[in-house]
Structure formats: C-alpha cells, structure tokens
C-alpha cells in the first residue's frame, strides 16, 4: 500500500513551487528556503517509502502502475496521467530526489544574496517535479510533459539573470535546441502509436518483439527519432551547443539540471526503450558512434577552456557521451551505473566550483584563480575527490562505472569504440586536473582586492556528502563479484530482452509479407564474460588516468610555460578553443538564413506578392473605375454615340 504514495513524489515539489511562486515575496527568504527544502525532503522520504513498498511487491511483479486520471484521448488513443514504479524508475527517483535535496540545501546558502530568491526556488522545485514526472511517467507522453517541463525550467533558470543578454540568449537557445530534439521525439511517439496502438511503456516494450521486425524500417526510424530527441536533451552531437552556454545560470542550476539530472534524461529514455533499440542494430551503431564522438570532441574542447564552469560543462557533455556509447553497445546497466556515479561526482564538482566562485565573488575565469587550496580547504578536498573519481582512479566510483563502459565497448562493440572511450578518458583526466591545478594550486592570480574565503556550512556540507557518495558509489557495481553486480541484478527486469524470440517473430512477419529473412543465426551465439580481459583493461585504464593526471601536473604545476609552447602557432588550438566553430556554423547555416529568409518571406512574399496581389486587384479595379469615369464626359452627343456603338455591337453580336 505504500506504493499508493507514488503520485505524491512529484506532487510535493510542485506544491512547494506553487507556494513559493505565488507567495514567495511575502513570506520571506527563510520560509522560502524552508518550503523548498522541506518539499524535497518529503519527496525523498516518500521515495524511500515507495521503495519499501516496491520491495514488498509479490514475486514476479516488477512494475507497479498508478493511473491518477485519464489525461486525454480520442477514439482508441488514450493517454493516462499515470506513474510507474520499476527498478529503473526507482534508481532515477533516488538520484533526482536525493541529489536534488542536497543541491537545494546548497542553493539556500548560495542564493542568499539574491533578490528574487523565491523565483529561483519556485523554478527549482518545479524542475524537480517535472524531472520526476519524466522518470515516473508510465507512457511516452507523460514522459514528454516532464521532458518539456525540465526544458522549460532549464530555460527559466538559465535565464534567471534575465537582465543579462547573454543569459537570455542562452536560455532561449537551450529551449529551442531542445525543441529540435522534441520534434523528433514527438514524431517517434506518433510512429509508435501508429505501430502499437498504444504509447504505454509496458505495453509497447512487451509487444515490440512481436510487432517490429528486427532491423526493420519502422524500428530504425523510431529509434533514430528517439535518439535525436535524446541528443537534444542530453547535449550530444549535433545538438550539444546549448549546454556550455547554459552555464549562464546560477551554479546550483548547473549542478542539478545541467549535470546530475536533466541532461541524463536522454540516457534514461534510451534505457527505458532498450527493447526497441535492441531491435535496431543500425541505430545502436549510430548511438555508439555519436556517444563516443561526443565524448572525445567535448573533452578536447574542455582542455582549452578557461571558464571553470564551461570546462565542467564540456566534461558533462563528454561523460554523457560515455553513457550513450554504453547504450550503443547494449551495455545499459553500465550506462545507468555511470549516470548515477556521474550525478554524484559532477554535482559535487559543480557545487565545488560554485563554492569557489562564491568565495572569490563571482569570478569564473581560471586564469584569475590559483592557490585557493589554503583559503577553502573543504571545497578543495571534496573537489579533489570528485576530480579523481571522474578521472577514473580506483577505487572511487567513477573508476568502476567508466571501466564497465570501456569493457563493454570493447567486448560488445569493437575496438574503435573502446579507442574512443579510452582516449576520452585520458583527456578527461588531463583537463580535470588542469582545472584542479589551475584553480587550487600554484600561485594565486586572484584579484588582490578580493579576499577568498571558504563558503558557509550550508554549502560545504552538501559538498562533503556528495564527495562521500562519489567515493563509495562504485559499490553499486563491483566488477569482480560477477553475479553480485547490484545494479545489474536490480535492473534485470527492465532490460530483459529475448533476442531469439524477437528474431523468430521477425522471420515470421517477413514470411507473411512474402519477404525472405536474412540469416540472423550469428547474432544468437552466446558470449562469455571474460574476467581476465576485464582486469587487464582496468589496469590499463588506471594507467591512462594516472598518465592524464601526471600530464596535467607537468603542464600546469611543474612547467607552466609548456602549454604556451605546445600550442604556439597551432591552427588546431584555435579551432578547438573556438569549439570547432560549431556555434558559428549553426548560426550561419540555420539561424541567419532562417531569420533573413523569414524577413524576405514577410517583406517580399507576404507584403509584396500575396498582399500585393490583393491590393493589386483593388488597384486594378480602381484604375478601371477611373477609366469608366472618364467615359462619362458630360457631352450629350458622346452619350448618343455610345448608344449607337452599343447598337452596332449588338447587331454584330446578333448576326
């Protein structure tokens, strides 16, 4: 019966948001903070209760669905406003409410000085609510409410400082780029309904092997569209450009939305639809490639940035690339595993950077930092732990999750994917420690008028908690204890997929249609889990990570002149530093032509051609009218002439 509480989980933050939004200005900052954090706490506690309730479900039942009301429908199409609780959802709920709660607490401290404090928390709570809808919805459209809802909150929060043009632009850009993804997502949903006659997750996933042909056109298009949707939300190539700009928002926003939760929604969606993706090898390949490519590309850009938050942003893009690569090779557990650990350490990193920025009064440029270690020890140590985690140093959480991704990319994918992954890992270790060294070590380059100081408890406590989680998070999936991989076992009911059965159905369907099925026998060959290879890879990636760290140490501590030397006169650097000119490219290819074309359309087509035709018709009539008028000369003999002319013409017409 505890599961009946499910619908309360997203409701609490929503209520918090409404209260803060409407009455925030009247009730004062303290109350606002209390309501925001309180609603998050309630939500988290409810999640725990729901978890307990879920554990008490009878054997064999993996999904609990709660339909609150029928949202809308027409004919045989019906969408429920319903929630589902299954292992995957539970993982996501805990990530969202847990990390959400921590970051809320942090934000209470961080945003203390802001005038529209209440506005921030209204949006923030609303975001959590939307994110919960996203992960809890039992059908594609409910997920889409959340999907757009988080995008909307992201828009508000990026543009929180709405008097800054760059912030507004960034917000708008984020929303519109996301909309491109949403466009594809919507089409996918329609296609799914077209095929399945339902958009309920459970039903679709259950029916998929029977209704879709392996590698068929439909499944490929659906999954491709879904994936495009995911690239929008999760900032993958080609739709990643909004995320770095999104750093205009307050830092807690970056931590919660643009690192821990919202941007991973794409990964969640892919895993949720794993059955569909499994049926389309082509999409899988594309997903893996895009993921791997994004991981490398973002990492390279990350190496050249100087804005502390932007580095982290590119790092996020890169890490999500990992997750997609994992999905692309079918290692969904690894993807979720990395998602969870990434949420821990990246949130910690962002909050740490926020603490730094807070400590030196809003400066974000790393070139104006340095030597902050002694001023803000807690921040430093937590930041360091997280950096080590992301770099993949054992036995921290990031090591295990990243390693699992790499292992699967080699074993289930091929060497190219693994190569991408491992080189990205090298770059990650390097740029993370470039960040750490430039910020906390070396000489202080801070503006002398600024006195760096450690942040208040309210902000450091969340850092500690997150660093702790980043440290022990790896327990979720220890590699050697095969069969004891907690996350794997936990997610098994969601990810279960019977390929043989699906192939059999496909063959049957193809025969029905009079087509010959290609040979799929090789797909069914069983694969062994090779512990030794895994171990070897682990060692190798550890070495790579350490190499990266050491490299950063040499470049930024030992020989600070080296980066200058290496990059002197390199055309490549310029390109990377300018993010491969992708923004400019999009601007030239999409934005400007659209705006200019629209102007043209308006001024030339609408005003001149269409309206011109309308007014032209009126003018023509006017012209004729004047002609008709001049005929009326006032001379009687003229009039008589008309009668005669009329007579003659009538005669001619008659005979």
């Amino acid at each position: 019966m505890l599961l009946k509480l499910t619908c309360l989980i997203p409701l609490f933050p929503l209520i918090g948001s409404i209260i803060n939004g409407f009455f925030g200005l009247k009730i004062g900052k303290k109350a606002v903070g209390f309501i925001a954090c309180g609603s998050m706490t309630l939500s988290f506690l409810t999640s725990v209760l729901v978890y307990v309730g879920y554990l008490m479900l009878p054997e064999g039942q993996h999904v609990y669905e709660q339909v609150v009301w029928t949202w809308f429908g027409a004919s045989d199409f019906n969408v429920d406003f319903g929630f589902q609780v299954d292992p995957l959802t539970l993982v996501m709920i805990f990530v969202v409410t847990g990390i959400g709660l921590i970051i809320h607490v942090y934000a209470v401290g961080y945003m203390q000085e802001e005038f529209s404090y209440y506005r921030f928390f209204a949006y923030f709570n609303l975001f959590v609510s939307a994110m919960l809808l996203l992960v809890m919805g039992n059908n594609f459209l409910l997920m889409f409410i959340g999907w757009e809802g988080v995008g909307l909150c992201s828009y508000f929060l990026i543009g929180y400082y709405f008097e800054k043009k760059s912030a507004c632009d960034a917000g708008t850009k984020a929303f519109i780029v996301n909309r491109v993804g949403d466009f594809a997502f919507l089409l996918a949903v329609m296609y799914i309904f077209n095929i399945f006659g339902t958009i309920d997750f459970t039903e679709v996933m259950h029916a998929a092997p029977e209704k879709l042909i392996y590698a068929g056109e439909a499944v490929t298009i659906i999954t491709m569209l879904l994936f495009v949707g995911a690239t929008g939300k999760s900032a993958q190539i080609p739709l990643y450009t909004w995320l770095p700009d999104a750093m205009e928002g307050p830092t807690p926003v970056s931590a919660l939305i643009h690192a821990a939760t919202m941007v991973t929604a794409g990964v969640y969606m892919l895993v949720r639809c794993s059955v569909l993706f499994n049926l389309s090898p082509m999409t899988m390949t594309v997903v893996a490639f895009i993921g791997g490519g994004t991981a490398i590309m973002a990492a390279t850009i990350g190496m050249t940035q100087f804005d502390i938050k932007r580095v982290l942003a590119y790092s996020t893009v890169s890490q999500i690339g990992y997750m997609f690569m994992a999905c692309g090779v079918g290692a969904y557990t690894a993807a979720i595993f990395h998602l969870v650990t990434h949420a821990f350490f990246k949130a910690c990193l962002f909050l740490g950077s926020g603490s730094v920025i807070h400590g030196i009064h809003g400066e974000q440029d790393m070139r104006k930092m340095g030597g902050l270690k002694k001023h803000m020890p807690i921040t430093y140590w937590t930041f360091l732990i997280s950096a080590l985690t992301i770099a993949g140093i054992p036995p921290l959480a990031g090591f295990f999750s990243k390693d699992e991704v790499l292992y699967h990319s080699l074993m289930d994918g091929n060497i190219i994917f693994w190569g991408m992954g491992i080189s990205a890992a090298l770059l990650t270790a390097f740029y993370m420690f470039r960040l750490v060294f430039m910020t906390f070590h070396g000489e202080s380059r801070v503006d002398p008028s600024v006195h760096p100081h450690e942040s208040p408890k309210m902000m450091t406590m969340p850092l500690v908690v997150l660093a702790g989680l980043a440290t022990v998070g790896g327990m979720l999936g220890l590699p050697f204890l095969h069969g004891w991989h907690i996350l794997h076992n936990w997610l098994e009911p969601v990810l279960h997929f019977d390929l043989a059965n699906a192939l059999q159905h496909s063959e049957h369907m193809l025969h029905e249609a009079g087509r010959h099925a290609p040979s799929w026998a090789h797909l069914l060959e069983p694969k062994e889990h090779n512990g030794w290879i895994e171990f070897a890879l682990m060692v190798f990636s550890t070495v790579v990570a350490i190499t990266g760290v050491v490299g950063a140490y040499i470049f930024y501590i030992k020989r600070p002149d080296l980066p200058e030397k290496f990059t002197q006169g390199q055309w490549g650097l310029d390109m990377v530093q300018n993010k491969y000119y992708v923004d400019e490219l999009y601007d030239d290819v999409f934005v400007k032509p659209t705006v200019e074309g629209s102007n043209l359309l308006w001024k030339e087509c609408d005003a001149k051609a269409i309206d011109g035709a309308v007014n032209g018709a009126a003018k023509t009539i006017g012209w004729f009218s004047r002609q008709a008028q001049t005929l009326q000369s006032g001379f009687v003999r003229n009039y008589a002439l008309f009668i005669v002319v009329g007579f003659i013409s009538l005669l001619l017409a008659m005979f």
Partner: protein
Amino acid sequence: MEPILAPESIDLIALAPVIVLSFFAMMVLVVDLFGGRNKTLLVFISLVGLLMTAISAFAKNPIPAYSFNDSYIVDHLSLFFICIFTISSALAILLSVEYNEREGIRAGEYYALILFCTIGMILLASSTDMIMIFLGIEIVSISLYVLTGIRRDNHRSNEAALKYFLLGAFATGFLLYGMTMVYGSTGSTNLFKIAEVVQNPSAQSNPLLLMGLVLLIIGFGFKVASVPFHMWAPDVYQGAPTPITAFMAVGPKAAAFAAFFRVFAETFPEMAPSWEILLSTIAVLSMFFGNLGAIMQTNIKRMLAFSSISHAGYILIAVIAKNSLGGSSLLFYMLAYAFTIFGLFGIIIILGRKGEENLEIENYSGLAYRHPILALSMTVFLLSLGGLPPFAGFIAKFYIFSAAIQQGLITLVIFAVLNSVISFYYYLKVVVFMYMKEPEAEFQISLTPLTLFVVFIGVFVTINMGIFPGSIIALASH
C-alpha cells in the same frame, strides 16, 4: 380590314386604376388653379388618388383579365407592379412636400406629373400590345422630362432635363424602329399574337425580327439604364430634384422592367438563344460599369445613380432567367429596392438644407455620432443595396440568383456576386464616412416629419422584408 376594336372587348373595370388615377391627376391640376400657394391639399388629393388606384386595381376578378382587344391585361404581375408604382409614387410625393418647400419648387403640376407618370407606368406594366407599351413609355418619359427640369432656375436641373430629353427621344426612335420591325416581321403589334407567330421556327430566324429585337433591347435598355445605354443616368440623377431622382430610380425603372419582362421573357422565350447572350452581356457590363463608376464618385446621388445601373444589371438576370421564379423575383426585387431607395433618399433630403444640399459623401462625416439613428438607417439601406443579410436586398438577390441558377445561368450569377463585392466597397465608403471620420463642419439639419416618416417606413420594410420575407414572397410567387 378587320375591325380594329370590338366594343365588347373594352373592359373598363379592368382599366379602373388608370381611369381613377387620371381623374385624380386632373383634379390636382384643377384644384391647383384655385389652391393658391398652399399645396397641402394637392398632396392630400394625390395620396388619396394613389390609394384609390391601388384599391381599384383589385376590382377586376378573376384574373387574368384582358381588355381592349387583349392589349391590356390584368394579371398577377401587373397587379403587383401597380402596387409598387402606387407605393413609390406615394413615397415620392411624401418626400417632395418638405423638399419642395425648402427648395422653393412651387409648381402645382409637380404632383399631377407624378400621377401622370404613374399612369404611364401602370399602362406599361399592364400592356400586352406594342403600341400600348410605346404610349406607356412616352407618358412616363415626358412626365419625367418635365419633372427633371422642374427647377427652372437651376442650371443643373435644366441640363439634366435636356440630356434626358434628347437621349430619351433618341432612344425612343430606336425602340419605335424596333417595334416596327417586329411588327413588320410578325404582322401584329399584340404580344400574344407575336408570341404565337414566333412559335414557328422559320419566323425565329427572320433577320427583320432579330434586328427588331436588337432595337427593342436598346429602347428598353435605355429606360432601365443598362450599359451601354446608361450614360444619361448619372447626369440626370444628379441634376434632378432629389425626390424625383428617387422616384426615377424606382418607379419608371420598375415599369420598364415589367415591359422588358413581358416582351422578352413572355413573348420571345423561344428565341432566347439569340437574345440571351446579348442580354447577359448587357447585364454583366451594367454590373461592372455601374459598380466601377460608383467607386470613384464623391457625390452621393451620382454614386447611387451608378449603383442603380449595376442594379439594373442584377435585375436583368431575372429577365434572362425567363422563368416564373424570374418573374416573381423581379417583383420582390423591385419592391425591396423601392423601399430601400426611398428611405435612402429620404435621409439624403433630410441632410440637406436650402442652398446647400450636402450631397458630397464627405459631408456625412461623423454623422453616426450626431444623428445615430439616421446613420444607422442609412447603413441599413446601403447594406441592403449591397445585398447583405438580414436586409431585404439580400433576399431579393437570393431570389434572383436562385431563378438564374434554376435556369443554369451559373456564370452570370458568379459575375453578379463578384460585382456585389465591388459594390460593398462604395457602400461601405459611405459607412466609413459616417462612422469612422470626425465631422468636418457643423451642419444643422431639420428633422422634417414627413421625410422622417418615409425613412422610417423604409427601414421598417427593409428589415422586415429581410427577416420575414415569407408573406411578400408568397404574394410575389403567386
């Protein structure tokens, strides 16, 4: 030679309206001799005369009844038209009383002439013989020549009269010549006999007859002011005294259409293939020229003249449709048109004052906020003329169009509706000035009761015929 007129064929009861009205018209003339400057009595006599005429029209029962060797008919069409004529004459007289006083028209024969004109119209609508038609037309025309020029000291009035007179006589020549040819080719002036003759296919292709038809078209076309015989209309409408303009736009026009209908739709329906295309062209040209001409006008009377040309085009459709629906739609249209036009001209008269008739459309600026009711009435009339529901003009157009579509004349109807759109433009232009412009100069108007009464009747009937047209339709489609 056969006897021209058999005494037993003279049915004076059938002729009662003409006789009654002639009596009253002459009485007006006589009384005027002794009446001095006060014309009230004349007006009273005229109105009574018209009322008596209308009543006496129904004296003949059963209908149709014939008289004078089948050259005079009392049938549904003529009865309905007599009603239209008496109504329009009565309204014209009502409009004239205060107008004449204001403008200093003191001629007592004014009312007598209107009555005589009415006699001509009755004859025209009731005649089934070409001689009679000719006489009817001339009675109407000559009265109107005089009425147009009755303001002897007014240059425009004179000029209008001259133009009307010269062109009218000129067109009469054509009409007569046409009648002669028809007579020569069929051997009769009686429409029934002509109709019998033209049943014969060989007679139908007689070039003399065809030529005669063309000439008839010119003659009638002139009277109803259709293109290209319309040129007189704007000048004459503008120059004539306003009540006479209204009268001309309704009564004589209706009468001419009645004759037009009798001759073409009832006498020569078999020859439709040869005249249909001609009349259709004339109809379309009338609509276009009328509407195009009206767009640029700044003088409201002139604009309405052009508008009446375009209306002639619409009404011609009813003639071309030449079915019973066409006949009844013609009746309905003319009735609706009569009330609308008289109401409209009533307002125009009210808005004028001595020496300054305020006929420019600009003068109506801001009327809606000085005299909202007048402006609203004016809007009603204009929209009715444009054919917008729920006013009489819409039902009338609907009626005519349905007659045409029943006859398969869809192209013609499409031309007509497109022209309606053009016509909306200039009707709305007046509305624009009344409602959407600020008044330019203050002008005092006198709300004279009789004219207001006419306006009121006009509004009432225009709306009533638009919303509850049932009874009138039932009458018209008997």
